[in-house]
């Protein structure tokens, strides 16, 4: 049996103003403060196309290797809902601005191309807020915010591939700076389509659409749930229906909203208020040239720098993190070492705080200073790691902290030697153990030496010195 998954993703573009008027495009404002006669749909108002939104849509199209349409129109999609101020949404029906793109994801059988059918421009709707006492309040701040809708082909065959696709898509959009792609704020919204085909028995289930998935986790969970449900229907020979469902985050299941046949007829027609759009090829090329380097391109370059594949992928995921890595690598002249520091220590902190690299307090300079302190053996690695934990929050200069607290590593050979001698003398049992083949005893002895130096010694150095003694006798 084969699972077919397709995604429809709405992305709010981070333009300063709305799609068709000069109201602020801003999340979290006081309700109904970013509104004007145009986005409220007052009679007689006319839509003025935001050129920046068109540019962003082209950028998104290029980031996914789409063909960009040069001549297009806008259309009206009609339905009645209180959050839709004009009774129609301005969108693109049959002339989407971008078509025929793809994203490559890792699948069980290696890299796999997931095709993007189309990307079109449209406007967002307002928001309905349902109160506890049964009223509905309307907030039109979001009405008219520019959106792109990205529609994939049903090329994904596991929930994991869908998650990868979505992750990749999110990264790229963030990289090129056309959206802040925050699912929790609704600037990235995902609907999924799924059905299952039994190729041998030539049977398939009808497509289910699951709406309003507000996290990556919800997407995977809902898909896993649906995959099972569809497979079961096929196995049991149950009749399936084309339906629209929603994900219930509490009961962890999908709930049917309606049969698809009951859905709207949107009665598309031409939006005559907006003249047909013509985009010069030279303009598209100009945008293409100025497009920032994309994650997969960065990944390839990082691999060329000697970083292994998995690490290169992780480092290129987030643009801020990638930039952090690149500067660090250059400053300390050792890409692998920079990668290690970022992947093992910095990333752990970021994950712990559930932050992206561009949200953290720690500056690039202080991070590099810390690595340099460790590399120059002014402090040992343990101290460095402890300090990182601290300056991750405070962004203090590690050089100042080392000085103030006297954290500098012991470099006096004689002092180190006397500590080693003491340790050897005090722990004859461990020495005995080592010689009887218990390698772990060495670690214990080094630990004891570190303790005696109050952390200022260099464990590698201790290790070497103790080993010398052990081997000698």
């Amino acid at each position, binding site marked *: 049996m084969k699972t077919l998954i397709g995604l429809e993703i709405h992305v709010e573009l981070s333009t300063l103003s709305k799609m068709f008027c000069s109201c602020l495009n801003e999340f979290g404002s006081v309700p109904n403060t970013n509104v004007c*006669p145009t986005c409220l749909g*007052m009679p007689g108002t006319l839509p003025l196309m935001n050129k920046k939104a068109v540019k962003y849509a082209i950028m998104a199209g290029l980031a996914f290797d789409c063909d960009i349409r040069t001549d297009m129109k806008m259309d009206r999609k009609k339905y009645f809902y209180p959050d839709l101020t004009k*009774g129609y949404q301005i969108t693109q029906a049959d002339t989407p601005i971008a078509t025929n793109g793809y994203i490559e994801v890792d699948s069980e059988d290696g890299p796999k191309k997931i095709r993007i059918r189309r990307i079109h421009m449209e406007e967002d709707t307002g928001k309905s807020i349902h109160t506890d006492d049964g009223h509905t309040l309307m907030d039109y701040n979001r009405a008219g915010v520019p959106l792109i809708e990205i529609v994939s082909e049903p090329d994904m065959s596991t929930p994991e591939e869908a998650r990868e696709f979505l992750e990749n898509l999110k990264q790229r959009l963030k990289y090129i700076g056309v959206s802040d792609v925050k699912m929790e704020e609704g600037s990235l919204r995902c609907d999924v389509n799924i059905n299952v085909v039994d190729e041998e028995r030539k049977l398939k289930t009808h497509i289910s659409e699951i709406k309003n998935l507000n996290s990556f986790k919800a997407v995977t969970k809902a898909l896993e749930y649906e995959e099972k449900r569809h497979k079961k229907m096929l196995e049991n020979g149950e009749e399936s229906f084309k339906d629209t469902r929603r994900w219930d985050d509490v009961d962890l299941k999908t709930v049917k909203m309606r049969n698809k046949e009951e859905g709207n*007829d949107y009665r598309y027609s*031409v939006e005559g208020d907006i003249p047909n759009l013509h985009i010069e090829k030279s303009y598209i090329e100009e945008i293409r040239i100025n497009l920032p380097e994309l994650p997969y391109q960065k990944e390839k370059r990082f691999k060329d720098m000697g970083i292994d594949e998995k690490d290169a992928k992780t480092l290129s995921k987030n643009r801020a993190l990638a930039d952090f890595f690149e500067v660090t690598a250059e400053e300390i002249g050792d890409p692998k070492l920079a990668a290690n520091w970022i992947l093992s220590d910095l990333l752990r902190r970021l994950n712990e705080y559930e932050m992206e690299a561009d949200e953290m307090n720690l500056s690039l300079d202080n991070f590099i200073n810390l690595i340099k302190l460790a590399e120059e053996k002014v402090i040992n690695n343990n101290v460095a790691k402890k300090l990182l934990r601290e300056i991750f929050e405070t962004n203090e200069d590690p050089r100042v902290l080392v000085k103030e607290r006297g954290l500098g590593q012991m470099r006096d050979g004689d002092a180190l030697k006397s500590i080693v001698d003491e340790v050897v003398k005090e722990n004859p049992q461990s020495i005995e153990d080592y010689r009887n083949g218990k390698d772990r005893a060495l670690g214990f002895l080094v630990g004891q030496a570190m303790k005696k130096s109050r952390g200022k010694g260099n464990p590698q150095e201790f290790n070497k010195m103790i080993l010398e003694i052990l081997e000698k006798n």
Partner: protein
Amino acid sequence: MGYKISEIQGKYLSGELRVEDFVKSNFNKIRENDLGSYISLDEENALEIARIIDEKIANKEELGSLFGITFAVKDNISTKDLRTTCASKMLENYIPIFDASVIERLKAEDAIILGKANMDEFAMGSSSETSYFGPTKNPIDKSLIPGGSSSGSAAAVAGDEAIVALGTDTGGSVRQPAAYCNIVGYYPSYGLISRYGVVAMGNTFDQVGLLANSVEDIVKVLNVVGGYDEKDPNSHEGQVDYKLGAYSFIGKKIAIVKDIESFNIDKVVLDDYYRALEDLKNLGAELVEVEIDHLKYANMIYTVLVSAEVSSNLSRFDGIRFGYHDSNYSSTQEMYIASRSGGFGDEVKRRIALGTLLLSSNNDQVRYKRGLKGRKLLRDEMERVLNDFDFFISPTSTKLPNKLGERKDDPLSVYDSGTFNVLANISSLPAISLPIREGISGSIQIISKRFEDEKLLDAAYAFERRQR
């Protein structure tokens, strides 16, 4: 008969007439005539502005080009702080918070808006009989309809209740009432006058049109309200500053309708039309009968496309943010049904229903798509004709105005008399309707190439002067 801008302004400047007195006389006339030309009057405000202009005149201050000129404004053009009803219960209490661009421009030139003119509801109709506020009477013969949908605009100008009027024209809604009230009505090239603030009916057909007693006055107003407006994405680049008096018909080739008698035209209208053609020949024009192949589809193309546009343009009237709200509902769907059923009149509902049907996807929108194709064919054909000829001339309306109430219950009647009118709207071409003689009579319509409005108006001016 009828006021002229230059005469009135001359009297203001010479001190023979005070603006305030003239405005008062307009309001008196409105009450005396009792034609039902206006839905709302802005008397206090108009008199206040009149006094300010009188003061400016007395102090020899700089005056706007339309100083002291009184206007009737069709009630689907947004006026800030002045109720704009579209002659519908739906907008009975709707007060816009902004001015249409044309209104801004009029105000900036010291024009005086007397009030909002009656019309067919949401501009759907051709007699004013679909107005929620009751019909307008024809000032020439009160038993007759004034035409429509810019009914009050035409009646106000013809009845000396304003010097000039703004109307809107989607399929003849300025030219046909102008013809019925025997004044001049002008539909500009699509894009020449800003639509910002004009309540849409068929948005790719709608234009603000002008109604006046003379071509000269039309041009004076057009020079103010016409020209590029950044708020209208379909606005044509460039400013409008037209001059008159250079045009001569001598040696000009003009296309006229072939087989005019096959169009079921009233005898009087036809006779007046022939009279006008004679006059044109006498002015030196060469008239050539031209067959417009797609003319027979014009009404169908118009009906299909405008209904489709109506159904979406009127979707915003849901009673939530403005307009009629019926609070008797228990679900969102019921709320829409209650407010829209209660707020719209029959004709509006019919056209919304028709447009909705035409756009439904279950027949793949076959008629809508055919309509779009037909529009393109007709446009191309008109372009070819106007490449070969200076103008295309026809009667404005095929009928004389009928009695008020006579055809009210015949919903199909509104679709048949405007064949020559819709030709201009379908093709985005400018057109003007000119009276031929005094009284209830036929008018002619002249259509020219798009954005050759100056030539069109100058030719109309030349034709108009032959009458004197």
